[in-house]
């Protein structure tokens, strides 16, 4: 066992830190829409040109295929740039791309993978439906084979970036007469096909990235099916497990740095009675716990990466990290609001203050998106502890 990184890894960290310091965008990212897409894809293209487009992607598809320890280093350093962990590139790079690598035909891979890595396209995810949230396999968006096409009719929801996406990883019901996991198909959907209607959903944090997507007899070529017809559940499962990999490090490191900034803020700012906020014992205890929670989350990340580096079977740390992160993030950003005090009521014009209000509101989604905390607890209870379903 050791905590220290090798000399080669330290040199790698220096290289990454220097490159990011010189190249990462410093201007504020536009909040949503086409401008956000242009910002994200421009940044992806810059990373691609310098060989940083896909640190976890195989070399065969233009990635670096870094060992897990160096991926960890990359994400730790990336986190320092302050760039958000999830943007319009996320589904392509972390979901659809890896799924295509694992399950797509050579033609499909050749057509799509390089475009994703080069920052030419945005992908979105068509999984959840109004009646299929945590129970994803009960999805009902219907697809019927007609000649050499799938004809899709139905509705998806919570589709981030559908308004600016070129492609979608879409789950459809191709056979309603078999058990629910068996009649699902995973298909590549061109978001510009006739019959697709994208409607925005405003969220409580003021965000405009969420959408509903409606499909009215949308005709998708059968050549876009990945895996076989009715085999989409197993294709989708390979996608979901990729989501809990090393990339989570960015969120974890940024949360820890948020806590350090909160501690700074609490030392600098005074409360209503004129004393520094940090001298309030109750707030100080919560700040200390926040720092403690972040340190433990980091230790868990290191433990998870150590295990995954030696085994193809990811350990339970993925679900544990997601669950714990959501809980800790909600507490920490709530604490940010308390340190701001009544200043957090007005929509602030101070950029620093705005960020805390935004993050506090956004944190409510951390225990819902990508599998709710309740579902994570079920997964841990059943798959780690062997409790009955």
């Amino acid at each position, binding site marked *: 066992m050791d905590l*220290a990184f090798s000399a080669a890894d330290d040199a790698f960290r220096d290289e990454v830190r220097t490159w990011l310091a010189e190249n990462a965008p410093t201007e504020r990212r536009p909040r949503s829409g086409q401008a956000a897409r242009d910002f994200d894809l421009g940044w992806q293209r810059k990373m691609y040109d310098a060989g940083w487009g896909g640190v976890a992607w195989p070399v065969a598809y233009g990635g670096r295929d870094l060992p897990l320890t160096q991926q960890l280093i990359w994400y730790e350093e990336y986190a320092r740039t302050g760039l958000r962990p999830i943007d319009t590139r996320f589904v392509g790079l972390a979901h659809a791309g890896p799924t295509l690598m694992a399950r797509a035909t050579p033609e499909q891979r050749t057509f799509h993978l390089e475009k994703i890595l080069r920052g030419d396209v945005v992908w979105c995810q068509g999984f959840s439906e109004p009646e299929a949230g945590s129970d994803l396999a009960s999805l009902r968006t219907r697809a019927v084979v007609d000649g050499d096409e799938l004809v899709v009719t139905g509705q998806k929801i919570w589709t981030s970036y559908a308004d600016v996406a070129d492609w979608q990883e879409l789950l459809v019901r191709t056979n309603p007469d078999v058990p629910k996991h068996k009649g699902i198909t995973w298909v590549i959907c061109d978001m510009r096909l006739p019959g697709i209607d994208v409607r925005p959903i405003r969220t409580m944090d003021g965000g405009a990235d969420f959408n509903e997507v409606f499909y009215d007899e949308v005709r998708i070529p059968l050549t876009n099916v990945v895996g076989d017809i009715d085999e989409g559940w197993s294709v989708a499962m390979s996608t979901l497990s990729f989501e809990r990999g090393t990339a989570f490090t960015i969120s974890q490191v940024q949360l820890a740095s948020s806590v350090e900034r909160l501690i700074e803020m609490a030392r600098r700012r005074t409360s209503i009675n004129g004393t520094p906020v940090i001298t309030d014992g109750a707030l100080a205890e919560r700040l200390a716990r926040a720092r403690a929670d972040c340190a433990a989350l980091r230790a868990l990340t*290191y433990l998870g990466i150590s295990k995954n580096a030696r085994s193809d079977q990811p350990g339970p740390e993925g679900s544990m990290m997601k669950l714990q992160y959501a809980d800790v993030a909600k507490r920490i950003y709530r604490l940010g609001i308390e340190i701001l005090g009544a200043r957090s009521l007005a929509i602030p014009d101070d950029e620093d203050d705005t960020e805390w209000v935004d993050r506090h509101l956004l944190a409510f989604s951390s225990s819902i998106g990508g599998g709710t905390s309740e579902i994570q607890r079920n997964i841990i209870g*059943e798959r780690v502890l062997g409790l009955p379903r």
Partner: protein
Amino acid sequence: MDLLPSPEQSEVIESSRSFLAARMSTARTRALFEAGTTPAVDPSAWSAAAELGWFALGLPVAHDGIGGGLVDEALLFREIGRAATPGPFVSTVLAARVAAFGGVASLAEEITSGRRVGLAVTGSTPRDVQLIDASDGLVLLVTPQRASIVEVAALDGVTTVPCVDPTVHLQRAVAPSGLMSVATVASVESDVDPIERRANVLIAATLTGISEWARDTSAEHAKHRVQFDRAIGVNQAIKHPCADSAVQAQLAYAQFLFAALAIDEGRPDAELQALNAFVTAAAAAEFATATTVQVLGGMGFTHEHDAHLYVKRVALWSQTLGGTPSRLSRLLAQPEPA
């Protein structure tokens, strides 16, 4: 960076587990304290542990130790916690270090060969002292600044009193001019060797082992106990606290490994990591053992089930050298983690 035990470390973990099951089971512990023997550990088993090198494991070879890291000691203490093993393991291991680094090699040798050293903690006033498992006449005194070994005979009014934890030998004593001014047999300043920091990690490892026992015991019961015609573990009101126990135990495990390695490798944030090891493990152990009692229902509240032995170990270790609040204050005062 690698937080997985090596094959050698795994072997040590396995063999210590079998040793504890064979020689220091809770059945044996119960027989001992019910016969009035405290600390409730066989002297012969203690000697056997000494022969296995348990008290010299992390001591440098230059001090006639085995030369392992704090991480090796911590992995052993996790097993001691998991087995609810009574006896002054933490204070004895640390005392061997204090004797060695304090220049009293003969005492170090005596301790690593099987002389037990208890723990002295302050009572209600600085004059009042409580002695934990000090039946062999020596106690360790630990503060963040230094650690010392003191003879029980140097204290006044030593009386044995019953302890909430039935496995513990508890005494009260008086140090007329304060515990800090009692003559010491050996002493080490923290800048020479940070004993309190190591204590935090060893206690954290013990509490983590307890959390893991509690996690497994809750889950096992939830799998097999049938009510309303189904195993109670199907209910999320049972399943989710079990899952939370697993998460907290894993956080505690990862954090004590991180802290032990931070100390072994001399990282600048070692103090913060060690304080957090304690804080994280104490929270995990309190939650997981309380969950076990609740999941077990009436059985969990009995004297017959082992759950209370674990609950009482948690109470002991989460309070003995100061609790979570004082460590949180120190943690917040530390510089930003490296």
